[in-house]
């Protein structure tokens, strides 16, 4: 029953103080409660994608990576447009979208995607990404559960950050996250190699990844491993 929803979800999470939760656990609960193949949380801050707070498997990780690299996808839309984004069959969508994201996601086994904005009041934090390896929509109950989980996760992010030391990202947010620091390391390296600003260097890295059909993170790793020079 809908009125049981919140207590049931919170009971699933654990009986401990919610400061003990981890983002990995929250992602797993989202996956299990809603009943999807995988879940990931994308963190946006200052209108910039920062990376993922957690992902439950390789495919979820790929979904986050693709969106970070390509700057398009269901999570990005959910965040930008402040609404739930549903694509119940990526392989045969009603309205085609995400031309760069879709083929790679489908090739990896993603058939349906559902993205729920993470927000606390007017504060927007990112989105919860859920995927299925088969086509089909969520039931009303699953949709409702996902919305509750998105709220719980969003509030959790703010609550743990509120307790972080001044100027630092909360440990619990860093712990399971991938904030793509290697990409920023690479931007520093490339800025010296090309004699350009780091902003320009980031653009060059993205352009290279796009034209060589590679993930931005992999290109960055090559730069930092000195396998690739600009």
């Amino acid at each position, binding site marked *: 029953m809908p009125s049981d929803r919140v207590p049931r979800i919170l009971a699933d999470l654990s009986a401990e103080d919610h400061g003990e939760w981890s983002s990995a656990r929250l992602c797993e609960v989202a996956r299990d409660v809603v009943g999807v193949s995988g879940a990931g949380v994308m963190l946006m*801050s*200052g209108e910039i994608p*920062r990376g993922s707070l957690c992902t439950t498997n390789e495919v979820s990780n790929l979904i986050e990576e693709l969106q970070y690299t390509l700057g398009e996808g269901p999570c990005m839309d959910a965040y930008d447009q402040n609404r739930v984004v549903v694509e119940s069959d990526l392989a045969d969508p009603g309205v085609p979208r995400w031309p760069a994201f879709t083929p790679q996601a489908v090739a990896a086994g993603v058939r349906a995607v559902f993205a729920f904005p993470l927000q*606390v*009041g*007017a*504060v927007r*934090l990112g989105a919860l990404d859920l995927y299925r390896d088969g086509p089909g929509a969520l039931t009303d109950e699953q949709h409702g559960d996902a919305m509750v989980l998105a709220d719980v996760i969003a509030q959790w*992010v*703010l609550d743990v*950050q*509120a307790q*972080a030391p001044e*100027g*630092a*990202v*909360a440990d619990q*947010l860093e712990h399971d996250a991938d*904030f793509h*620091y290697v990409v*920023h*390391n*690479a*931007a*520093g*390296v*490339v*800025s*010296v*190699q090309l*004699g*350009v*600003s*780091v902003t*320009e260097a980031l653009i060059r890295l993205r352009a290279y990844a796009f034209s060589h059909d590679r993930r931005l993170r992999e290109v960055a790793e090559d730069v*930092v491993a000195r396998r690739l020079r600009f």
Partner: protein
Amino acid sequence: MTREADVVQSLVDLADTLVADYDVVDLLTGLADRCVTILGAAAAGVMLASPSGDLRLVASSSETMRVLELFELQAEEGPCLDAFRTGERVEHEHLRAGSGRWPRFATVAIEAGFHSAFALPMRLRDTTIGALNLVSDQDTPMDEADALVARAFADLATISVIQQRAAAESQRVNEQLSHALNSRIVIEQAKGIVFERAGIDMAEAFSRLRNYARAHNLRLTDVAQATIDGTLEPHVSTDTPRTTRS
């Protein structure tokens, strides 16, 4: 407008503050004024607790009331204080100089022309954020119907204030997160720069930045930003001159 229309309009106005930006002092001054114009109180005062838990006077419907409320705080006795402390409605009290529940407050109130007082907590479940004081120049208690309306006004105002505070806090934490992530990015970018200029590994690059910061009593983020901007003397990374920037 009829009284009913006034009450409805007031509820609409208060409800608006739940969905749009507003100023807390304006809200509570409006609340105090409504208690006078619609509910027939002679005067009203609103107090809110500061973060440390002390009550402060935020709004009054008249200068006379303002002075009385300041006296209440100073004397540490009075209907507002009781309503705040107990979280319960303080029943209408017929004031007698020098006696009753608040002997000194009563004396000053009577001098100001007020004969009775009634107070409501500003409370949402277990949280009491302040209190609303209504004084009358009559001896008779406030009409129960009026008291109910006063409570509705107080409850709405309470929810509004609590919600606005929560929104401000969420915003603050979000900005803090953004700032922390930005600082970290700046450091990671600076690491890359030092790594390339000095031909060392990332761990060593980080050490150099951190050691430089410590040696010069600077924040790591500032050293990192200066490295990116090219305003730092070159010794932190290498002896070669800084590269051109586009």
